[in-house]
């Protein structure tokens, strides 16, 4: 673009020119420039105020910075607050205090996030840069010291969600060490641990919903069957209730979760539990098939089978009976369990009727299986489910008039 113009005035650093197209422009000063001179100039000669340019540049730089900041904020808050901070994994601990520990690749705690107020109270400042197991143990101690653990039954949920593959942490390791720690101290009695393997997705979802990854994991497991469960429920529900529900669900997917007991409670993995369930199911089928046959079996067994026959034969009456049993069961549960879980029982009872006869049968019958189940009557069993088993067991005993205790103890 060529401009032709006439110089109107010389200013400091530039000259004002009126161009052929009746524009008033500023051009850079060159030699021999005088008012009234006609000049031919190009785009390059148009004077640009350096201050204006800097101001403009500043403005755009500021805008860019804000944009960048917004993007960063978005990035941190939307997905995993983590990518930018070199966090390799997140471990969550739920007692009732809920805490998230952000872990670096070396397995050290980089930061602790309290998910509730109780969480705040058990976090003290000296947790950073320590190995995760050590921190978990310290938190347990703090929780105990602050009275979050009661003496009868405690449920502790620990999850590990790896973000980065390089992290030198595995769930088994944490499980082993934490269990050992809990078992090694007399302060921790009657604790049921659940260790769950989360994932990046679970972590992200959990953070979006404002609950711990551990709880979110349980929620995901439970929602498959219990559609009416909400995330908020999963976040606020007592762990006991969550554990209980989880043990009652019929899902096959159980490879990545493990249950383990504290001091006095035997390690019971979900897998073993499921196997048991399977076996029981098979057994009840057998029982149904050999309806006619069991005369030649032992008294207790045949009586059980008779009872089952009754149930199977008169469907209508059977249902009544089931309800009866259920009610019975519920009463017992209510007696046994603390008030907190009552609300849940009504819902969770639903899948029970199928399981009911088998439990009875089991408690009455085959000793070897009971051994496997490894649920000592005499020991304190904090698991709600376990209590229930025992209830049934005792009911069976009453009915039978015999004792299975010897068979069940290990």
């Amino acid at each position, binding site marked *: *673009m060529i401009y032709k113009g006439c110089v109107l005035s010389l*200013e400091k650093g530039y000259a004002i020119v009126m161009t052929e197209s009746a524009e008033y422009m500023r051009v850079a000063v060159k*030699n021999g420039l005088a008012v009234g001179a006609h000049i031919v100039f190009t785009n390059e000669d148009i004077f640009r105020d350096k201050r204006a340019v800097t101001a403009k540049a500043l403005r755009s730089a500021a805008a860019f910075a804000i944009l960048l900041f917004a993007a960063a904020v978005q990035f941190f808050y939307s997905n995993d607050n983590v990518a930018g901070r070199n966090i390799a994994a997140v471990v969550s601990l739920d007692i009732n205090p809920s805490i998230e520990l952000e872990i670096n690749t070396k397995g050290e705690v980089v930061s602790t996030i309290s998910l509730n107020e109780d969480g705040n109270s058990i976090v003290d400042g000296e947790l950073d840069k320590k190995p995760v197991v050590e921190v978990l143990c310290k938190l347990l101690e703090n929780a105990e010291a602050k009275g979050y653990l009661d003496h009868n039954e405690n449920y502790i949920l620990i999850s590990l969600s790896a973000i980065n593959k390089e992290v030198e942490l595995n769930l088994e390791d944490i499980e082993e060490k934490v269990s050992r720690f809990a078992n090694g101290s007399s302060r921790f009695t009657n604790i049921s641990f659940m260790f769950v393997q989360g994932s990046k997705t679970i972590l992200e979802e959990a953070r979006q919903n404002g609950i711990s990854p551990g709880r979110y994991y349980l929620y995901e497991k439970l929602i498959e069957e219990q559609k009416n469960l909400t995330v908020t429920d999963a976040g606020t529900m007592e762990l006991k209730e969550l554990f209980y529900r989880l043990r009652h669900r019929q899902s096959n997917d159980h490879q990545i979760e493990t249950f383990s007991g504290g001091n006095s409670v035997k390690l019971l993995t979900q897998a073993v539990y499921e196997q048991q369930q399977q076996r029981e199911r098979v057994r009840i089928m057998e029982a149904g098939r050999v309806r006619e046959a069991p005369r030649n079996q032992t008294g207790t067994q045949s009586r059980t089978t008779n009872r089952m026959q009754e149930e199977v034969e008169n469907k209508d009456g059977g249902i009544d009976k089931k309800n009866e049993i259920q009610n019975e069961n519920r009463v017992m549960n209510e007696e046994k369990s603390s008030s907190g879980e009552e609300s849940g029982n009504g819902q969770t009872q639903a899948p029970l009727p199928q399981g009911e006869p088998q439990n009875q049968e089991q408690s009455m019958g085959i000793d070897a299986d009971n051994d496997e189940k490894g649920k000592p009557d005499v020991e304190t069993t904090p698991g709600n489910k376990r209590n229930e088993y025992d209830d049934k067991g005792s009911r069976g005993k009453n009915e039978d008039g015999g004792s299975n205790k010897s068979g069940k103890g290990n």
Partner: protein
Amino acid sequence: MTQLLNFSFLPRLESRLERIKAGDSGEREMLINDYIPFIIKTISNVLNRYIESMNSDEYIIGLEAFNEAIDRYDPGKGKFISFASLVIRSRVTDFMRREQRYDKELAECLPDKGDYLISDADDNLALRVEINEFEERLKSFGISLKDLVRESPKHKDTRLNALRIAKHIYTKSELKQELFSRKRLPVMRIKRDLDISEKLINRSRIFIIASVLILDSEMECLKSYISGVMGGAGYDI
């Protein structure tokens, strides 16, 4: 900017040069035309002053040099633009040296060299006085040339409209009188006469006033700019 433009046209430029070398004279004209801004820029950089018109000796020399560069360009030896720039620079520098020598000789030959110089500056002197007066008159309206730069309409059509208003005021003596005496635009009258929105008038206020002042002056060149923008219609002023 020009360089950026050249850069993006580079592949095309090479092929254009090939065609010119093959004897396409129309293409040569077009290429030179396209590169006039480049030529002007180069000349003005060598001289470190603006060339005064498209008829000036320096410009002609530059054009010739560019033409020569097209002929002598060897694609194997780098980019055409830098080569052309080099040729223009050397030709213009040569020309400047010759000029200086000629001026010296002339000054020696002519004892009344003062007259010669004055006659050169004479054309500008009248204009310069006029421009100063124009600036003064603007000031009486509270307008500086800087304001004019800042607040002139950027868009060509807006400018044209504003110039029409200015011409209208200039031709209607009562409007002109009102403007000069009351130091403000007779907005309502203009609105009524030309059916132009008040907003438009007020936005171009400074530019309109300046244009009226130019039309009302003896600055032929500036007046010709205005009438040039307005097309043939402007010449009857």
